[in-house]
């Protein structure tokens, strides 16, 4: 835990070295998120109910996904670069240190723009949605578990580089599919698409179930979400470790930033 806090401290200090850029990115992302939410608010003014979802449900969805995304890729931003790091042989630094390699990679960088997402979610809820303390607790828990699913999925996608070589395009493509699907109320989909959203592209565990938890808590939903987060992370760790044995290093000159 001390290592995790020290790594986050170092990352934040490094990112904050260029303060204007840091703050511009944080606030820029919050404005970007606001525009997306405004679009949905306008939609719900015209069509107040969509497959049982109201404006407030949509606001909770956006609060949760931006919060999850902010944790996953604001604080553990190198998950987005995993494929590139593997292809360019840049894991040497982490392999030379006495800590879990995957944990070190994930803790290797913070991304200010995604920290904007992290702050946006709670602010959105605090301003526009009536919340109880219990709902705040469920929001934090659901958002955190959603972040775990995000990270696990991106680790699996990035680890493809161990097996396929340069696969940044593939990792980014399937990663974007997950992000894209998780920004919609997944109940608008049915049939095989819903199966897909709880298996291959697990947006349902990031968007739908955490929102359901905040809307009307059911223990079954929480258990399902916990099992999914543990299952996907276990799978991600297994895939990463399997790939790591195939790692071939490289000779690219590099500096930590």
């Amino acid at each position, binding site marked *: 835990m001390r290592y995790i806090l*020290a790594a986050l*401290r*170092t990352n934040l200090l490094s990112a904050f070295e*260029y303060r204007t850029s840091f703050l511009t990115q944080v606030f820029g992302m919050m404005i970007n998120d606001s525009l997306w939410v405004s679009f949905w608010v306008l939609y719900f003014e015209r069509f107040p109910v969509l497959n049982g979802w109201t404006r407030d449900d949509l606001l909770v969805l956006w609060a949760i996904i931006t919060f999850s995304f902010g944790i996953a890729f604001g604080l553990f931003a190198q998950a987005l670069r995993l494929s590139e790091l593997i292809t360019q042989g840049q894991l*040497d630094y982490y392999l030379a240190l006495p800590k879990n390699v995957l944990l070190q990679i994930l803790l290797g960088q913070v991304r200010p723009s995604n920290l904007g997402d992290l702050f946006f979610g709670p602010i959105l809820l605090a301003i526009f949605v009536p919340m109880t303390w219990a709902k705040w607790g469920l929001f934090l828990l659901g958002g955190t578990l959603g972040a775990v699913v995000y990270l696990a999925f991106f680790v699996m996608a990035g680890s493809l580089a161990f097996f396929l070589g340069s696969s940044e395009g593939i990792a980014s493509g399937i990663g974007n599919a997950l992000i894209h699907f998780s920004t919609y109320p997944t109940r608008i989909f049915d049939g095989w698409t819903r199966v897909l959203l709880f298996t291959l592209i697990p947006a349902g565990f990031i968007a739908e179930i955490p929102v359901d938890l905040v809307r009307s808590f059911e223990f079954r939903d929480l258990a399902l979400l916990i099992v999914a987060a543990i299952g996907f992370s276990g799978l991600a760790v297994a895939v990463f470790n399997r790939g790591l044995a195939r790692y*071939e290093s490289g*000779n690219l000159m590099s500096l930590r930033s």
Partner: protein
Amino acid sequence: MTAAANAPLAISVRGLTKEFSRVKKTGSFFKRMSPFSGIVENFVALKGIDLDVVRGESLAFIGPNGAGKSTTIKILTGILHPTAGEASVLGLTPWKDREKLAFRIGSVFGQKSQLWLHLPATDTFELLSRVYELDRARYRTRRNQLIELFEIGDYADVPVRKLSLGQRMRCEIAASLLHEPEVLFLDEPTIGLDPVAKASIRDLIRNANREAGVTVFLTSHDAGDIEQLCRRTVIVNQGQIVFDGSTNALRRDALTKKEIDLKLTASIESFEPMTGVEVLKAKGYGLKLSVDTKTTGIDRVVGELLRRYEVEDIAIVSPPLEEIIATIYRGGSR
């Protein structure tokens, strides 16, 4: 030369082999765009290396580009898995006990920095103290000791991006010694440094070895690093050990040539022969000589040159490693 019998070993390697598969691509644009283009071939980077290093030893592990030096270091630090063979570092198998081993070894890769570019070196020290789970009091004492010893106090709190290469390398080595490692792996630690910075880095490595008893495993392209730092030298070429002996023996048998590069104030017409000196190049104001130090002292040659000519600039360098290896092959001084 092999490690002394019964002496405690820091590193022991038997039949270490590493193969990489690589694809060769040739032919026209359309041929290379075909999914079936390219010939996959196995490239053997290490061909069954055997090596023992005694605790406290300073070993130079050298060779030309692509010889297998970095691959060996990466296997010994647990970064790469070998294809075959055994290795033990401080009694641990690097690729199986990577985390345990990492607490006891340090590594410096001249081309890969462990310092955070936008932060002062002290911030990296702080993070490393958590990585190595150092006791706070012990960490502070050690950090202050290293800052003083490495004379980096003036710039330890300046962002690394604003440091010169030599200053950065001092901080890199200090960072690698923070947890008091028993073995220090150095991969090209003096690459790109000017002569003054090189000398100072060599002093620091020498002190770590001789005063703190750290086992030093060094790879370098610079014959100067080897001569000044290591008592034993292993030369690797094309994945095989071609020389394993004392650096003194290497100096006697193979490092017998020095090159003198002169820039004169006037154009040179002719060069009057000197014993043990061969003219490599004489053109305009430039004169490049090779000196056989077995036959004549470098000081005598320089003295004579300064007496004969008005010299604007002078540089004395060791011949490249490729030439040393060729000498070993010719002389068979294995």
